[in-house]
């Protein structure tokens, strides 16, 4: 005489898994590790002579304690910073006040008029961190846009879609040339 084994009651299984689900929802958080990656410069060695950089190749951005911007000696709204940065690096009119360019041969790209420009970012100790990040972001946006334009003209793809070698070539042609200068108070005490 064969007897059917009684079926397992799985009704509460869903409740148990719901419990687990809620537990995990509470103790975990969705990945939000996004950010602006930067490389700090090494500390200057004692006695080392700083590299002499031509005045025209330095794009000076000052942020004061009232979160106002002074770009190359001109008060600027943060919205204009991106275009100014692009103009400085690309220097379409070959102005003697904007960055110098140098012909360089880069793999995959060929000859490219590489800019010698460097952005020098300086802030006051009382500058808001939020403003500082905005400025960093605008400069990064300018560099990304220039990279994208170059990628479009050379490879007919956006920078995001390039493979590693191509991306490296573009990054070589347009590096992230941002120098976070030695801390120094730029005045405008609150």
């Amino acid at each position, binding site marked *: 005489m064969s007897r059917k084994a009684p079926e397992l009651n*799985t009704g509460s299984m869903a409740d148990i898994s719901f419990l687990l689900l809620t537990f995990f929802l509470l103790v*975990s958080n969705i990945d939000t*590790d996004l*950010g602006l990656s930067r490389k*700090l410069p090494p*500390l200057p060695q004692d006695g080392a002579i700083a590299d002499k950089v031509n005045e025209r190749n330095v794009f000076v951005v000052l942020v004061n304690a009232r979160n106002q911007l002074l770009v190359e000696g001109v008060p600027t709204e943060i919205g204009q910073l991106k275009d100014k940065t692009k103009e400085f690096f690309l220097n379409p009119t070959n102005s003697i006040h904007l960055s110098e360019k140098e012909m360089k041969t880069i793999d995959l790209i060929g000859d490219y008029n590489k800019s010698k420009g460097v952005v020098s970012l300086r802030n006051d100790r*009382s500058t808001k*961190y939020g403003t500082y990040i905005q400025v960093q972001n605008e400069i990064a*946006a300018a560099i990304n846009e220039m990279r994208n334009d170059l990628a479009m003209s050379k490879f007919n793809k956006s920078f995001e879609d390039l493979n590693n070698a191509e991306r490296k070539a573009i990054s070589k042609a347009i590096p992230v040339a941002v120098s976070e200068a030695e801390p120094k108070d730029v005045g405008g005490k609150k």
Partner: protein
Amino acid sequence: MARFKKSGKKEVPGINTGSMSDIIFMFLFFFMVITTIRQGTLFVTTRVPSATEVQKLERKNLVSYIYIGVPIDKKHGKEPRIQLNDQFAFASEITAFIEKERASRSENDREFLTTSLKVDTAVVMGIVTDVKQELRRVGAYKINYSTKKGKSVSK
């Protein structure tokens, strides 16, 4: 009309809930994969600023975090403080912190160690600069300013 009359007692069959748990488990695994366990307790507020040009932080196990913000608990004052691991710290303690982080990683990975700065928007740069100087001193040059993705400048 008799045609539509129900003949006899007919029960509505119960809904089979056996596969319900499978669905919930699927959810559970999905969440377990896309989330990370919250590590440590935060003692400071870190409303990070938003930026548009964000990059994803790669190789999570090679990231050490420094939090800077105003203490959540009022009794620690209103001045922004630095939090390393699970306690408040001073900028001078960062050297030891980074050394410890380095020691806990394998030798090959040490040069890829990144420091993620989770800093509140309203903090002034002075304390951030101090931290950056300490990081330069100890040779941890790779940093990441933690931000949200979003519009940063209102034009």
